[in-house]
């Protein structure tokens, strides 16, 4: 079932992780204690130009040697360390979370419009599919994902997320269905700039996976949400669709609605459905996607999962439950339920 919550401060003011931790714990009824996680944007200002690679290692010998080698081949490691953690009584440590600040050597990816991203994406796929005992779970600039198997509070305290300040936060309280609660299966899922939290189950996963894999992405986390991050990267970054049209591709209007649109709109929506039919997501879902520029929340076309949005000053909140939002901010200017398939978008002011 899962609970999700996210917040953006449009003025880029930093928020520490303490209040989102409280909000997420309020939705413990939606989780099972087998996975929780947080993504924060703007947490590594001193390394803003470097890709922050967060990796779960099973040990620091074979997998790490292999990862170090491949990173050095493809670029420069500015810094690396074990992600600071504090042992929690009810959180079983099964991996060692590690982080690198990495700059790819773009001369190694000639002919690409986005060589940095292409190298990092390739490395993520390569490490996750070929190096046993290493899983990259966060790979964006100035972005950090912090996740593990456990209840939201334990995971937050394990990573001490109150010490991080971000202008966007995404958080997820997991009730796993597809896979048992292993650390890699916890949300948020991240690739480059994209982070995703998701409530629901994507019944079109097989179609989406086979579509995205034909573009060189590899699904390795045994769960449906991963594919959303990759679809965002393909449609949003590589194909350049604006967020609203990307969401339109994921949760398009019904044909009978398209048939009633004015000509120009009809043509556009038909083109989206024809071109991106394999990216359409079916089944019940509520999703929030974040990039450095903002957050987008949306649900499936027939609204089988809850999603509430709210505003307070510069801050936009999106969550499974209003109560969770009010745990972060009791005084809200506006609370509303977004329509099925229609995105709620919060962008930072430039």
């Amino acid at each position: 079932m899962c609970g999700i919550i996210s917040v953006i401060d449009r003025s880029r003011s930093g928020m520490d992780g303490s209040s989102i931790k409280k909000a997420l714990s309020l939705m413990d009824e939606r989780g099972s204690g087998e996975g929780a996680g947080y993504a924060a944007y703007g947490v590594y200002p001193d390394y803003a130009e470097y890709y922050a690679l967060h990796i779960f290692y099973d040990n620091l010998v074979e997998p790490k040697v292999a990862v170090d080698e491949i990173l050095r081949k493809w670029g420069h490691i500015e810094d690396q360390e074990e992600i600071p953690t504090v042992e929690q009584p009810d959180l079983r440590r099964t991996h060692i979370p590690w982080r690198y600040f990495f700059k790819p050597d773009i001369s190694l990816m000639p002919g690409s419009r986005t060589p940095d991203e292409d190298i990092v994406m390739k490395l993520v796929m390569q490490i996750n599919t070929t190096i046993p005992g290493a899983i990259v779970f966060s790979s964006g600039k100035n972005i950090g994902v912090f996740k593990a198997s456990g209840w939201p509070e334990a995971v937050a305290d394990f990573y001490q997320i109150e010490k991080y300040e971000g202008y966007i936060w995404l958080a997820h309280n997991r009730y796993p269905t597809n896979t048992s609660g292993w650390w890699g299966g916890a949300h948020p899922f991240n690739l480059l700039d994209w982070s995703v939290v998701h409530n629901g189950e994507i019944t079109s996963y097989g179609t989406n996976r086979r579509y995205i894999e034909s573009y060189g992405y590899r699904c390795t986390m045994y769960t449906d949400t991963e594919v959303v991050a990759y679809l965002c990267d393909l449609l949003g970054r590589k194909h350049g669709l604006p967020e609203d049209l990307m969401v339109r591709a994921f949760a398009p209007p019904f044909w009978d609605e398209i048939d009633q649109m004015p000509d120009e709109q009809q043509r556009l929506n038909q083109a989206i459905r024809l071109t991106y039919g394999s990216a359409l997501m079916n089944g019940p879902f509520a999703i929030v996607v974040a990039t450095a520029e903002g957050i987008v929340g949306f649900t499936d076309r027939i609204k089988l999962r809850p999603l509430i949005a709210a505003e307070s000053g510069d801050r936009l909140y999106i969550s499974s439950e209003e109560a969770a939002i009010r745990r972060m901010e009791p005084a809200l200017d506006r609370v509303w339920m977004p329509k099925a398939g229609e995105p709620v978008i919060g962008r930072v002011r430039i």
Partner: protein
Amino acid sequence: MRKEIVIDADGLHYTPLNKKIRSAVQDGVSQIRIDNVLGQRFIADGLKGEVTITVNGIPGGDLGMFMSGPTVEVFGNCDHAPGNTMDAGEIIIHGSSGDATAHSMRGGMVMVRDDIGYRGGIHMKEYGEHRPVLVVGGNARAFLGEYMAGGLVIILGLQEKRVLPDRGIGSGIHGGEIFIRGDVPERLLGVGAKKAEATEEDKARIIPFIRQYAERFSVDPSRLIEDGYTRITPASGRPFANKYTWE
């Protein structure tokens, strides 16, 4: 004898909260006020008796589920399915409510000041003396009264700009009736639903509820009573009848 108690729900899990409510009802308390409610589910779940509960805050889902008798008045928005499978009593919401409001409700009344989410009144049913009523001051989202098997749904549409429920109104409806203020285009009706302008006789059935709404939320009832309503009912009591053939 009128006894009243106050419960502070701040940080309280729903099980101890409901335990307090139940023991108070057993002690003959007739008025319960719960303050600082935030996200607690199942408030008054399966509760019987004659008691009025005031909820201050934002309750979690399934408020008043299986409830049989009490009145719950919420000052705040409700989450999913308030009045779920409720038998008798009243839920009054000073705010809005989430998806599947009044799901499978068999009796009593749910009255929402503002909007409700998707699938409002889904599979509401009636039996014998039980006849559930859902009154919504604002608007409803898609699939209103889906699968409805009985009872009464009233959508007053009181928002500043008139918005209609989305597609699939009364989809699969095979009992009961839905009233929506104003006209409703045919394309919004679901499979198996038909519409007609409400007659004076029809309206007579909903006017008492309109008056209750107006009184409760201090709105002038005269316009709501004068206006025309669309009545949506089943085209047939057996929407699946034409789907199957014997092997």
